[in-house]
């Protein structure tokens, strides 16, 4: 079920990330809060962030290969796919990723806000 609160919760928890477990939890919360269409669009945006990245940071080979597998099987837009993409883009481009997450969170608020 789509829950805009979960995306927002994930954004608010960004500052509290200390361990990989925290990061995994945050990524899952964000992915959980998106509709299938939103997940697909968000996944595409995150893939773009990853591919454009010119940072010195390096992506763990296993995570990279997981993402490639998901891409090859059209699964980047799944909950697991989005989680892996958020994880990867937080490693390479944390600021751009946070911006992208906040953007999708704002969009959800706009969509779910009463007129």
């Amino acid at each position, binding site marked *: 079920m789509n829950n805009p609160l979960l995306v927002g919760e994930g954004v608010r928890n960004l500052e509290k990330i200390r361990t990989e477990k925290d990061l995994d939890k945050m990524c899952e919360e964000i992915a959980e809060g998106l509709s299938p269409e939103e997940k697909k669009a968000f996944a595409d945006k995150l*893939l*773009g962030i*990853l*591919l*454009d990245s010119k940072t010195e940071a*390096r*992506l763990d*080979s296993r995570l*990279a*290969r997981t*993402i*490639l*597998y998901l*891409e*090859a099987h059209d699964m980047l837009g799944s909950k697991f796919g989005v989680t892996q993409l958020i994880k990867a883009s937080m490693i390479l481009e944390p600021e751009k990723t946070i911006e992208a997450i906040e953007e999708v969170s704002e969009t959800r608020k706009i969509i779910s806000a009463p007129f």
Partner: protein
Amino acid sequence: MRFGVEFVPREDFWKIASYGIMAEKFGFDSIWVTHHFNNQDVYIILTTIANYTERILLGPGVTNPYLYNPVLNASALLSLDRVSGGRAMLGIGAGDRATLNCLGIEMKSPVSAVEESITIIRRLLAGETVSFDGEIFKIQGATLNIKANRDIPIYVGAQGPKMLEMAGRVGDGVLVNASHKRDLEYAVKQIKKGRGNRGEIDVSAFTCFSVDFDPIKARRAAEPIVAFIVAGSPKAVLERHDISQEDSETIRKFLERRKFKKAFESVTDQMMDCFSIYGTPADCLQRIEEISKLGVSQVVLGSPIGPNKKRSLEIVRDEIIGKVP
């Protein structure tokens, strides 16, 4: 018209593999990965792409007889064909003088070196024990323990008249480093001279390519590549396009002194038109349609592809592939 795409294995392996997955999903027919010692190994990157794709053909674009002995190329090609489920191709040419120079490798008799390599590779892949006494290669009783399951197509990377003619004589296909009508007409003529009555040969235009909805961004992305092409072009090619030796020399000197901004600013519109296909999707489509009437059956989109590779691949998918008969 079929479409191939070139990747340079300088970026992280996973980025190239991701573009490779996109290329397959977007309808490209082939992937060619460049081969220079200072980038990631061509066959390792090709194998990585093969592991995440199912149908797209893949091969070095191009390797050369100096960096990898033909025996090694045969072995690597065979391995790639096995791993990919029968999708390997070979692109082989004379190599890049600048890169080979710094290894102290002399590019001796490039036409003979490429032709001899092709002969040796074909015989090894066919399961023969090869003894070969050529001008460049001397081999005594070399054999591969595994035989190829099929005839792996061999494309020759060619630009000059003798290489083009040899390509026509012995290749299954030719990767012509050109995009302009004048160069391609010349190339097709030379290839046919070598081909004689041997039947069809696949002629591919392998070109610097840059597409974007913003034509200025598309041009800016391609300027560096065109600068290097102009700086390194032989006299005959420059003359064919009325480009002065002096202008080429100016750019070459800027590049040598690493004054890249000045070099790229020296690239004229004429140079851009001669050595690349660039601009909006409509601009690029028009150029490709012109090429399709010259006996070219495939266009390989070479670097940079566009100012943003992912977006440019998407543009090609939506606006170009399938639009040229």
